């Protein structure tokens, strides 16, 4: 006669599944099952003492205080994102080129029509011809246009890039010394060009 396996004895003691037919005819297996049942019943009588009701509020406060000292969970922290970095770089490039283009228009242009903020004034049709070449032909504007078209607005917004009154200084202030040096050189080169015009 083949006795029950430990799995079958355990399942029988826990009352899982149909009891094997063998149990009815085997006293040894039946007593093993009964022993396990008794142990389970005895162990189940032990309960954890319930702490004071005040303990739970105190506990939650302790956890809250401890959590407050923790950094935010990873997903709540801004992570490095290529798209975001690329957007930031593109936006920075637009700023720099925008500054350069501004300085190229060394002479004021008579205008009656003002573009939106950030766009150059459009020359009056009846006024003096613009000193600068037409914008459509300006390679700088072509580059700017391409960069702007690659800029994902959502990414830029998510990265915290919004327009406002505080100029490029803030962006430039975040640059490294080397980057600032390069911007200065770029601006100086553009100024010299503007002075030659």
């Amino acid at each position, binding site marked *: 006669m083949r006795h029950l396996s430990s799995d079958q004895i355990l399942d029988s003691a826990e009352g899982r599944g149909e009891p094997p037919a063998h149990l009815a005819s085997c006293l040894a297996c039946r007593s093993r099952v009964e022993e396990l049942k008794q142990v389970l019943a005895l162990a189940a009588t032990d309960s954890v003492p319930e702490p004071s009701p005040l303990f739970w509020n105190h506990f939650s406060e302790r956890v809250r205080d401890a959590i407050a000292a923790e950094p*935010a969970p990873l997903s*709540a922290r801004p992570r490095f994102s290529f798209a975001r970095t690329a957007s930031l770089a593109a936006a920075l490039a637009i700023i720099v080129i925008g*500054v350069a283009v501004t300085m190229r228009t060394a002479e004021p242009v008579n205008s009656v029509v003002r573009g939106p903020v950030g766009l150059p004034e459009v020359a009056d049709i009846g006024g003096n011809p613009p000193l600068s070449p037409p914008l459509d032909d300006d390679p700088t504007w072509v580059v700017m246009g391409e960069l702007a078209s690659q800029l994902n607005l959502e990414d830029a917004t998510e990265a915290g890039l919004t327009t406002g009154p505080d*100029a*490029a200084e803030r962006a430039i202030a975040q640059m490294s010394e080397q980057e600032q040096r390069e911007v200065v050189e770029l601006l100086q080169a553009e100024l010299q060009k503007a002075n030659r015009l």
Partner: protein
Amino acid sequence: MATDLNSILAQNIKPEWTVSIVRPEQSLEPEDGTGPALAELDEPALVAACLAGRREAFDMIVELHRRAVYQLCYRFVGNHEDASDLSQEVFIRAFRGLDRFRGDSSLGTWLYRIAVNVSLNKVSAKQPQTEPIDARPHIDSRAVDPSSELLRGERAAQVRAAIACLPKKQRATVILRIYHELSHEEIAGILGSSVGAVKTNFFHALAKLRNLL
């Protein structure tokens, strides 16, 4: 350098051409301030809210699971002070690792896994201290037969002492199966074992307890 830059900017940039970069502060609240009430969120949504920066969502998680976590820790350490400290540790670790919760198991099971690890580390380092008799909850002796209550208390102490003698995995299996009524599959997930190993552990643990009791 900064002076050069400022003077160039001041002299050559028209006000309407300025562009500013504003980095908004990390918001802990939904942008519109009218996010769904936390009490209405299910557990995955609470986790998501917490990961989105709403730390009060974690308060809800603590409230939902603190009792079960405490009881599990108490089963390992056998006294209130250590159980309380371990439970706090469990929630702090859960907060730190919340981004790793994938929702494959319930949040409760995931917290149990942390609690078992924390508790086993604790009991490995220190023998469990059982609660002194005076610290046990007061029971009105007029309502029950004192002798039967005494007997029950002694039995409970014997059970705890016997469980404390089990090897770590058997002990965890007994606690999770008997007192937290987890399935063998859930226990296997928590302990990183197979279901077969869990059943074998449980069987041997019960056999040892039978000899000890």
